[in-house]
C-alpha cells in the first residue's frame, strides 16, 4: 500500500510539473531579445537553423529543460533557450489603441516605449561628457558559436550540463 501511495505521489508530482511547465506545448510566446538564433537541438552547440527578431510570435511545439522548440506560423521550427521568450505580446508599432491597454499592461509590452533611444538621446544632450563610443564598440563583440566550442575544447574545459 505504501508503495502504491508513493507511486501515486510521484505521478501526481510529474503531472503537476507538466501542467506548470512555463513554455508549454501549443502556447504562443514572443521573442524578447533583439535577435535570436533557432538551433537544430536544445543546446548552444546546435546548428543555427533560423533567426528570429524582437516581437516575433512563435508557437511552442515542445520543451526540454530550459529549451523550447518553437516555430513561426507556417515557418521554420528550431530550439530556443526560454530566456529569449516571454508570454507577453509585444506590440511593435505604437498606435492609438495602445492607450487602452497601457504600457504597464501585464499581457502586452509596447516595443520602443519608455526608456528607449529617444530618452537616451535626451540624456546625451544634457550629459555631453558621457561618451557612448565604447558601449557601441562593446556591443559589436559577438563571439561565434564555433569559436566558443573551440575555446572550450582547446582549454580542456568539459561542460557538465546547464544551458548547453
Amino acid at each position, binding site marked *: 500500500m505504501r508503495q502504491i501511495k508513493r507511486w501515486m505521489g510521484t505521478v501526481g508530482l510529474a503531472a503537476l510539473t507538466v501542467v506548470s511547465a512555463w513554455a508549454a506545448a501549443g502556447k504562443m510566446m514572443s521573442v524578447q531579445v533583439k535577435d535570436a538564433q533557432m538551433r537544430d537541438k536544445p543546446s548552444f552547440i546546435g546548428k543555427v537553423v533560423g533567426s528570429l527578431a524582437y516581437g516575433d510570435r512563435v508557437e511552442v511545439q515542445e520543451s526540454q529543460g530550459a529549451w523550447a522548440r518553437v516555430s513561426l506560423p507556417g515557418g521554420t521550427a528550431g530550439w530556443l533557450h526560454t530566456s529569449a521568450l516571454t508570454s507577453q505580446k509585444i506590440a511593435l508599432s505604437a498606435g492609438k489603441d495602445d492607450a487602452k491597454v497601457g504600457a504597464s499592461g501585464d499581457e502586452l509590452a509596447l516595443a520602443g516605449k519608455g*526608456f*528607449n533611444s*529617444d530618452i537616451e538621446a535626451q540624456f546625451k544632450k544634457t550629459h555631453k561628457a558621457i*561618451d557612448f563610443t565604447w558601449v557601441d564598440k562593446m556591443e559589436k563583440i*559577438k563571439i561565434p558559436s564555433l569559436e566558443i566550442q573551440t*575555446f572550450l575544447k582547446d582549454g580542456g574545459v568539459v561542460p557538465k550540463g*546547464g*544551458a548547453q
Partner: protein
Amino acid sequence: MKPLVRQIINLLPAVLALVILPACQTMDAISEVGAAVGQGAGVLTPQQAQSVKKAGSAVGKTFDSITPEQEYYIGRTVGAVVINQYKPLANEEANHYLNVLGQTLAQFSDKPETFGGYHFLIMETEEINAFSAPGGLVFISRGMLKCCKSEDAVAAVLAHEIGHVEKQHGLQAIKKSRITSALTILAVESGKSLGGEDLAQLTEAFEGSIGDITSTMMNSGYARGFERQADQAAVTTLQRAGYDPRALVSMLTEMKKYLKPGGRDFAKTHPAPDDRIADVEKMIGAAAAVPAPVARQARFAQAVGKI
C-alpha cells in the same frame, strides 16, 4: 492647462481616497473603483477616469515591469557612466579573450539570452573592481585581473558579475517612485511619441534610475544577500561550464592581500572576502576539484598575464 499626466498624478490620491476597500484589494481594483466613483461623482471626465484606472495600475508595479528592451537602454547608459569614470584598456587581445570567456560562461548561466547580449571590457585602473550594468555589459579592472592567477579565477569574477545581471540586482537598486512615475506617464499617455513635458519627466525618471544604479554599484554596494546570490549563481555557472568553482575562493584569497581598508574599490562595496570565502565553501561542498590543463594556463598568461 496642465498636461494630462500631471493632472492625473495630482488627482490620484484624492480620487483613491474616495474609495474604502479592505487592505487586501489590489491597486488595480482600487483604481478601477476609484475611477468609477470619481466619474460618478462628477469629479472626473471619462477620459480622466480611464487614465486614473491605468495610473493606479502603475502604482503597484516594481522593477520586474521594466521590459528587457528598457533594461537594455538603462544598461547602455549605466555602462557609459562606468566608462566615463574609468578609462577602457585598449588592448584588443585581452578584451577579446575576456569576451570569449565571458560569452561562453553566459551560455551556462540561468539567463543566457538578454536583449542585447553579454559584452565585456577591461578598465585601465589599478583599483580592484568589477561592475555589471543591467542587460549584460560587464566591466573588470586591471587591478582585479591581477588578483586572478588562472583562467578559472577570471571565470569566477565574470560568473559573479553575470550572476548580478541574471538576478537583475542593478534594476532592483532603482527607487520605486521612479518606476511608478515612468509607468504612470506611459500608462496615461497614448502610444504616440511623448510630448515635451512628458518626455522631460520620463528623462528625469531615467536619469534618476541611472543614478540609483551607479551610486549603488560604485559607492554603497549591494546588500549582502545580493552578493551571496551572485556568488551562488557563479558557483552554478562555473560548475556547469566545467570550470573549478574553488577558483572563486582562490581569487578572493588573493584579493584580500591587496584590498586596502577604506579604499574606493571592492573593499567599500563588497562584504569582507573572509565572509564570502566561508559562504562559497559551503556552496561548493565536497565537489571534486577540476584539473586545469597547461594549454588553459598558457592562453590565460598570453592574453591577460602581462597587462
